[in-house]
């Protein structure tokens, strides 16, 4: 499965359940930011770290976290983001 740190800049992907090894506290933190399974996000940068656009808000994710944030494979990239 692809993770968000490997998605190309500009692509919109849909989040799925994060890697089970992601700590519960971080998982809750991501959820509070709106990064929840089923939600589309757009990758706006991969350097100096992964930055995603989630509902018009930019979130920076350190590599250790981004590498555990799984997303659907590129086929879903073309799906239009829902509101």
């Amino acid at each position, binding site marked *: 499965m692809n993770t968000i740190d490997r998605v190309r800049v500009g692509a919109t992907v849909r989040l799925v359940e994060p890697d089970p090894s992601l700590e*519960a*506290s*971080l*998982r*809750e*933190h*991501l*959820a*509070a*930011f*709106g990064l*929840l399974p089923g*939600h589309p996000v757009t990758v*706006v*940068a991969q*350097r*100096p*770290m992964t*930055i995603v656009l*989630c*509902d*018009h*808000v*930019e*979130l*920076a*994710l*350190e590599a*250790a*976290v981004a590498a555990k944030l799984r997303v659907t494979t590129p086929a879903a990239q073309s799906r239009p983001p*829902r*509101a």
Partner: protein
Amino acid sequence: MNANRSHSWAEMHGHILTGAAERPEREARTYALVGAPNVGKSVVFHRLTGTYVDVSNYPGTTVEVARAAARFEAGATILDTPGALAFPSRSDDERAALRALLHENPAALGQVADAKHLRRSLAITLALAETGRPMVLALNMSDEADARGVAIDVARLSKALGIDVVRTVATTGEGVRQLAHGLARARVCVAQAAYPQPLARLIDAVTLRLADRLARAPIAHRGMAILFLGRDPEVEAWLAVHVPDAMRDLVLLREAAERDGGRLAPVIAHARAEAAARIAASALSATKAAPTRSTLAGRLVLHPVWSLPILLGVLSLTYLFVGVLGAGTLVGWLEEGLFGGTINPAVTRFVEARAPWPWLASLLVGRYGLWTMGMTYAVALVLPIVTTFFLAFGFLEDSGYFARLAVLANRSFARIGLNGRAVLPMVLGLGCVTMATLTTRILATPRERLIATFLMALAIPCSAQLGVVMGMLGALGLAWLLAWVGVLVAVIGLAGFLAARLIPGKRIPLVAELPPLRWPVAGNVLKKTSARLYWYLREVIPLFLAGTFAMWSLDASGALPWIVARAEPLVTGWLGLPREAAAAFVMGFLRRDFGATGLFAMGAALSPAQALVGMVTITLFVPCIASVLMIGKEQGAARAALMVAMIVPVAVLVGGLVRLALVAAGLA
């Protein structure tokens, strides 16, 4: 400042124990503003109150609430609670916000939310709805939402939630009047998250038990049950006090559920998020909008190539403002002109003529006098520097640059066991280490706070000292100045590397929101700056006076010359400096810049190599007494003492090593 005092939580608890629970119904109402961090809540607060506020909520750092009289309703009070991203609470800020809900008996809640992120905002709305308090939702930053093509059907949303929903732009004041109006006639939110089984049944069971035992609770029984099941520490503590005999039973119920399905907080969060997404989708119509200028600028700031020149530009401008205008021009006027030329001679004459005992005169206006040293230092030297510094700091903070700086710095900070967020206290340390020590509270864990505090105490020079170092080493040439910077960076790197490995616990990775780059609103920056300055006057000046007093006592009792004599062999031998430098080092404990100034005054007597060794040692040396007292306050006396016991030998050791390196290189 006026009478709108804000209370520390301890005071507030005292207040509750003395009978606030039985407040008469007709008592003046309190409205609480609640919301995620960075949504513009403080600007809304200032708009709704407009008067002076007590400032104990040093923004983002302390877990105290600000309160002030409402503008729109005589006798009413508005509370500004710390930013809360989610309930059950996890951070200190979230706990403080929840404490306000539990103990302040707000007549209504005003949720300030970011209109750009409706889904996330509504998840908080649903959590607040469960408290059973009447509420209003302010969709702030509506201007930014518009620019991004986010259109929200406010009427529809209001109908779905059953409460007033107001579009606001806090910075221009748009919608603030409607928000005030809405607060006065707030309603209970009817929208509810639907919890899955078996959680839903469990919530009902706990709700029933609470309803049996509590006639009235500050948070509706069901809301209380949900927060308890999600392990909210504040609700847990409240219940332990109010229904002690039911606790065992309740805890058993929760533990049984957790054994089957793990922690309940994520399940709760998920259910709210789903309900929020559904409501958001029904009220939102997004149109495609071109990326805004602010979005593009924000990306440029983090661009692999452009970020560096931008950073250098920001640093240079900050230096011009703080270093040249603040530390140079303003300090010159105040310290040499006003205090040195006019006030101090007059005060000294006055006191010396009237003091009945010579020791009193020396305590007040002597070499280590409370006025001539303590107050003069605090007001004439540090105040102008911190004023310009806080202005620049507030500007960068409100512009959204700092959030991006944290991203840029994250990789380097990871090596020393911190994350990019620590860039804020560290930069603030360049202004005043004492103040920055307090700001370490924004860091997520006690471990990070400890590491950051230690590194600042060790190797971050404060503004007062920076000025002297720049003057002295700068005059010798850029190479010497860079050598000094290089040594400090190496020390921070090595000490941080070791601290990160020796201090138990785990590093928290950076996950942060990047607010859009904005042109800061002058009024907001000024308000923040004045709040911080007031804090500085209230908290730091007493510490400077205490430090001065300690120095005076050492001097008057004859201990100071004794210490200086003990230090001499080390200073002349290992560090290779003249004898007089010993006094400068001991002085440096009171005021780091004083120590540096002491060396500066020796000027021509020092070779360039000696100047470098001296400056490195003085910088690494313990910061001023005020900062040690602050470390004691934040970290405990034992840790403060341990830090001093580690820092002094390290400073001397590194100073000597620099000398050896210079000798080996043929430069000394």
